């Protein structure tokens, strides 16, 4: 039995790796994805263009603009003469925000009366706009503490002392790269497996496999092991890239990451085999894989947190293997996640893997008869 199984696994690996076009697709895109998307997938806000209307004649208005100009967040700061111009720039998305300083700004500050700065923001980009509003408010609060009246009052900005654990400077790649390890492994595992049975059926070699002395469960193992190996190979490549190229700190232990990774890949391969057994053609298999991958990535917490989803949708994400493995991958890298917590997310992965592999085996048997 072992020789048979070994021969099948070698044959499957060769089938995947021998086709030059298929080989390129298997190796090139995942690496490109990692390089491009880990830099692109940032919710950080920098290089922002803004404009200002400064009607103030005193020094405080000029000082505020100087400080905004000095901040590294902003790229171009355009002076405007009136609201009509401001409206055009905001409408055409040339600037994200317009800061408006009124005529009596310096006079009110010198007289120790409350002065106001108006900020107009582009709500079409509400996430960036809120973060920029936060930056501007902090700059304004710093200035406020230096005004004659400000030496008495405490501003909320200095009242709140912030400390970011695990990622003190909120470096975005530290968040994205461990997540991408999970996402790209999912895509690779899914594509390799979903095509495996469908291709044999389309080429007619599936019948040959059925008349061979191999038993059904042996064929299934033979179809599961190669994608598992390929998935592990890719994941290891990304873990190395995360550590050495992206300088993401690895605070936890890889011995916790890998067992979880194996069950995660097994769960994904189960889904892939199920799709593959269900499809009659390669095209259907590709579409089926996409139909699973899109919701799996969107409902995993990869790009936006699960907490933000509506309450009825959140329990559904428990069925998503990516959701659980994301917690482990990010936790092991940044948080030195304790073994108990890793286990708490690995058990669901084991259950999902058992469920998907059993479903795939059942469908596979039914298709064989």
């Amino acid at each position, binding site marked *: 039995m072992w020789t048979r199984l070994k021969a099948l696994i070698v044959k499957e690996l060769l089938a995947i790796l021998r086709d030059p076009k298929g080989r390129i697709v298997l190796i090139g895109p995942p690496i490109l994805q990692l390089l491009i998307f880990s830099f692109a997938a940032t919710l950080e806000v920098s290089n922002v263009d803004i404009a200002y209307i400064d009607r103030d004649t005193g020094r405080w208005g000029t000082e505020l603009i100087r400080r905004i100009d000095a901040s590294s967040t902003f790229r171009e700061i355009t002076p405007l003469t009136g609201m009509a111009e401001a409206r055009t720039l905001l409408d055409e998305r040339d600037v994200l925000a317009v800061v408006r300083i009124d005529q009596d700004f310096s006079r009110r500050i010198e007289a120790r009366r409350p002065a106001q700065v108006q900020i107009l923001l582009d709500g079409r980009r*509400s996430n960036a706009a*809120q973060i920029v509003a936060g930056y501007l408010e902090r700059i304004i609060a710093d200035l406020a503490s230096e005004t004659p*009246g400000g030496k008495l009052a405490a501003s909320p900005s200095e009242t709140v002392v*912030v*400390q970011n*654990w*695990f990622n003190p400077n909120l470096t975005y790649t530290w968040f994205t790269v461990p997540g991408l390890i999970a996402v790209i492994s999912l895509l690779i595992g899914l594509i390799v497996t979903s095509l495996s049975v469908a291709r044999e059926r389309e080429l007619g070699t599936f019948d040959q496999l059925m008349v061979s002395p191999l038993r059904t469960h042996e064929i299934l193992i033979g179809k599961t092991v190669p994608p598992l190996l390929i998935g592990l190979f890719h994941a290891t490549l990304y873990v190395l890239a995360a550590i050495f190229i992206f300088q993401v700190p690895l605070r936890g232990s890889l011995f916790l990451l890998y067992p979880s990774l194996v069950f995660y890949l097994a769960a994904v391969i189960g889904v892939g085999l199920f799709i593959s057994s269900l499809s009659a053609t*390669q095209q259907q298999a590709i579409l089926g894989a996409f139909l699973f991958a899109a919701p799996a990535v969107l409902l995993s917490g990869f790009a936006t947190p699960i907490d933000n989803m*509506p309450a009825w949708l959140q329990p559904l994400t428990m069925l998503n293997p990516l959701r659980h493995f994301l917690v482990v991958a990010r936790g092991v890298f940044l948080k030195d996640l304790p073994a108990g917590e890793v286990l708490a997310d690995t058990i669901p992965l084991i259950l999902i893997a058992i469920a998907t592999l059993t479903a795939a085996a059942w469908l596979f048997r039914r298709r064989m008869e």
Partner: protein
Amino acid sequence: MTPPAAPTQKSSQGGSPRWRRFRALMVKESLQILRDPSSLLIAVVLPLILLFLFGYGVSLDANRLPVGIVMEAGSPPARDLVAAFQASRFFEARLARDRRELAPDLVAGRIRGIVVIPATFAADLVEGRPAIQVITDGSEPNVASFVQNYARGVVASQLAQQIAEGTRPPPPLATAPRFWFNPGLESRFFLVPGSIVIVMTLIGTLLTALVVAREWERGTMEAMMATPVGIAELLLGKLLPYFALGLGSMILCTSVAVLLFGVPLRGSPLALLALSMAFLCPALGQGLLISAVTKNQFVASQVALLSGFLPSFLLSGFIFEIPSMPLPIQWLTVIIPARYLVPSLQTVFLTGDVWPLFRADIGAMLLIGLVFFVLASRATKKRLV
């Protein structure tokens, strides 16, 4: 069966043989779409699934962030502040005695932050220099920024209340941020228009690439070329039904966006239509080019996902801001058609008709479309020789 967008009135009986050929070609392509369940899957089911996913599943609005509060001493001002955190609609606050109790929850991701009100808070407040500490979970940077901003907001409104009660002097400088076009700051309002772009990319690029690659694989493309049909006619006849399909799904998505998700449509339908039609040129051209170069369904689908779907999701400004990306990646976005439709479509929905913006974006999309078509027809011709 009437072919969509076909010049039917002109070629009822007679007409030039050219028109008859062209019409026959489009009827054939339209029938092919209608008879193939997988095309309908991409054109109708997939857009709806994606739109629901983006509308419900993807949200940047952090409502009710779970945080822990440590009150080191129970003075009245500290209790007031705790009450303010508990009453805030942004936080789900849980009280604890010691920050060490909460640290494991922060590690496990069960809470997003810890607010520490020190024992000296009441005394510091009298001196006018109160300080509280906010610890965030930096492993999710965007959430961490929101915890910081919301915590400052709670403290600010608490201070404002004391000012109103006359116990504190007013702040010397106040800020009044106003969010235009989307005062409620609902991320859905800009994510749903963005997801329409992704749906149209899928139909334009993935579906076209798959269908035409299948024809190459089966050899029916060569069979078509042996007929008197010219290359331009052939490609155009292939693409027009998909053009109509793309516009149809855009209308379907817009209806769902407006009627179900309540996204306002402040611009004109004319602008919406003009932008969508302009976008379909590069999207279809890209699909055609991919299929002509790869001539293989598997490779075509991978290339279409990698160069069409993923960039329209990640490199278009749909969720992630283009100016925040590193410069080489910003340059790369210049050739992504979706990058020009996302801002314009968000504007049509939320702002209204801003033609200077639309004109520039439509121009860029048509230009990219032209380049794709030229490359695609070259790749097709080369095959024949």
